[in-house]
């Protein structure tokens, strides 16, 4: 659904911007993993595509609020960073397929790189509500780019932090710390969000331990609702065939081992409908 939301608060969190928006209809339908798209630039903007953001937090205050976490990457996010309380925003959501949750209490490791971690906090709340054990592994390039460390420490059994420059926690990447966390916690499942490279590496670790990995991918989108076909990635289906599927409508959450990370940005030769291969129509 589409709502005109009112900005409630804006703040800086570490190196990122956080916007809390009153968006009742979206907040009440939200499930962890869903995202929202925001029109940027105002009524007479030259920016025609929406920007997609994962939702960091949902609260029932003011009839329902959603909190978005983002970093300034271009003109659209720069405009969004300039919003102040009482400004209005055009939001569409909740969009995408949410994280599947374990039926029985399980041990879950939540892995987030940079501000991709934002989406893991409502997931952690949902897992905790089901009696799951939650452990966090959060990382970033430097201390200020690790998102949500304080909150993770408050709610999780253990929180492991990694930075590439060693300014906080362990020096290295989240995937360097992940194997020992999985082993120590006897994890049953891993949930991850962050850049494709991180998701690929997290999935590889999960497969080593033979536990499922659910990843929320970040891919450039124009519409977020499944009509523009620009956010496709190669994913292996239940039937074993690879298809170019939409990260917005079929995702953003996928089982890690189904995503062909090394082929993202290409059309694999064996994908359905690939030029010169795959299924060809014979008339």
């Amino acid at each position, binding site marked *: *659904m*589409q709502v005109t939301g009112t900005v409630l608060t804006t703040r800086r969190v570490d190196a990122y911007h956080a916007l809390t928006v009153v968006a009742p209809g979206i907040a009440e339908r939200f499930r962890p993993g869903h995202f929202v798209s925001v*029109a940027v630039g105002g009524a007479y903007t*030259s*920016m*025609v*595509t*929406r920007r997609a953001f994962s939702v960091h937090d949902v609260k029932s205050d003011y009839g329902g609020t959603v909190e978005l976490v983002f970093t300034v990457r271009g003109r*659209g996010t720069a405009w969004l960073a300039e919003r102040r309380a009482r400004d209005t925003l*055009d939001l*569409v959501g909740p969009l995408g397929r949410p994280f599947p949750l374990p039926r029985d209490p399980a041990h879950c490791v939540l892995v987030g790189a940079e501000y991709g971690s934002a989406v893991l906090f409502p997931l952690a709340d949902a897992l905790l509500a089901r009696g799951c054990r939650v452990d966090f592994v959060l990382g970033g390039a430097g201390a200020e780019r690790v998102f949500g460390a304080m909150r993770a420490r408050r709610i999780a059994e253990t929180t492991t932090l990694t930075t590439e420059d060693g300014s906080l926690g362990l020096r290295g990447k989240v995937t360097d710390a992940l194997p020992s966390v999985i082993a120590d916690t006897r994890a049953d499942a891993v949930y991850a969000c962050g850049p494709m490279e991180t998701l690929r590496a997290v999935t590889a670790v999960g497969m080593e331990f033979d536990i499922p990995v659910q990843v929320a991918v970040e*891919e*450039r*989108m*124009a*519409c977020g*609702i*499944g*009509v*523009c*076909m*620009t*956010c*496709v*990635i190669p994913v292996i289906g239940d039937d074993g065939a690879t*298809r*170019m599927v939409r990260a917005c*409508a079929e995702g953003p959450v996928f089982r890690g081992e189904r995503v062909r990370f090394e082929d*993202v*940005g*290409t*059309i694999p030769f064996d*994908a*359905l*409908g*690939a*030029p010169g291969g*795959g*299924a*060809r*129509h014979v*008339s």
Partner: protein
Amino acid sequence: MSVDMRTFLAHVELANPITTAAGCASSGRELAQFFDLHRLGALTTRSITMAPRAGRPTPRMAETPSGMLNAVGLQGPGIEAFLERELPWLAQRGIKTIVSIGGGTVAEYSELARRLADAPGVTALEVNLSCPNIEDRGRIFAREGSAAAEVIASVRSIMRYDVPVVAKLAPDVADIVSVARACVDAGADALSMINNPLGMAIDTEALRPSLAAVTGGLSGPAVLPLAVRCVWQVHAALPGVPLIGIGGVMSGRDAFQLVLAGACVVGVGTALFHDPYACLRIERELEDLLRARGFQRLADAVGLAHRPPGSAPRHLLVDTEESAP
């Protein structure tokens, strides 16, 4: 007082002039989550191809000033899946459906038309002529009157006569009127314009083209003047041919421009990416603009901007005569 928004695409009546642009509404299901598709004049599907197509690699999209470039490459599951799953879904709901088709050879277009000829639920057939002709060194059908005409003649001979065949034209040609005339002579019942002109953007961080496919189709408000010009020129040359005006329509005022230039149906594309409800809003805004100017029927505004300067609008003349004592 409400304005009569009904319009005719050839002999097919549509409840209002707003349709989706091909490739911007998939096959309808995604938009149906937002609003009742019956409120559209018609839904235009993405271009259906013979075989399943995986499309082009990503990145497929780049935002540009007042527009965007796309190089999706007609991704879709092919005609079989369309006839099995997508068209019946639309037909069962009674949604007026303009099916867009795309192919690389005349034979492929003909085969697509043959498959669709007996399928229930096809309101009109839009022939996407902006595909590369693989039998002619990859030259685009729409760039040559004779190549376009060959496709249209073949499709027209196969489709039932109660299903209008619409030729979709590309703007980057030397003389769009000659291509339009060739298509009409070959049997096109209506023309649709414009398809995306080709553009390109370069990523100044990566120092590489922004799209994996290097070039892509430009859409959005940036191309509206191009669409208005094409509709104007073709309507001036072929005033009796129904035109679907498409290109950068974001508001009712944009749609009104295309109507005044000669379009009796208006396609909404990129605006749907910005706002899933764009079609309904644009229809309402167009109706408001017509009402505010004293129009009782949309039909009275079609091509009205072509009248000589200084002459009063025809519908207003009728009104004065009637109100005269």
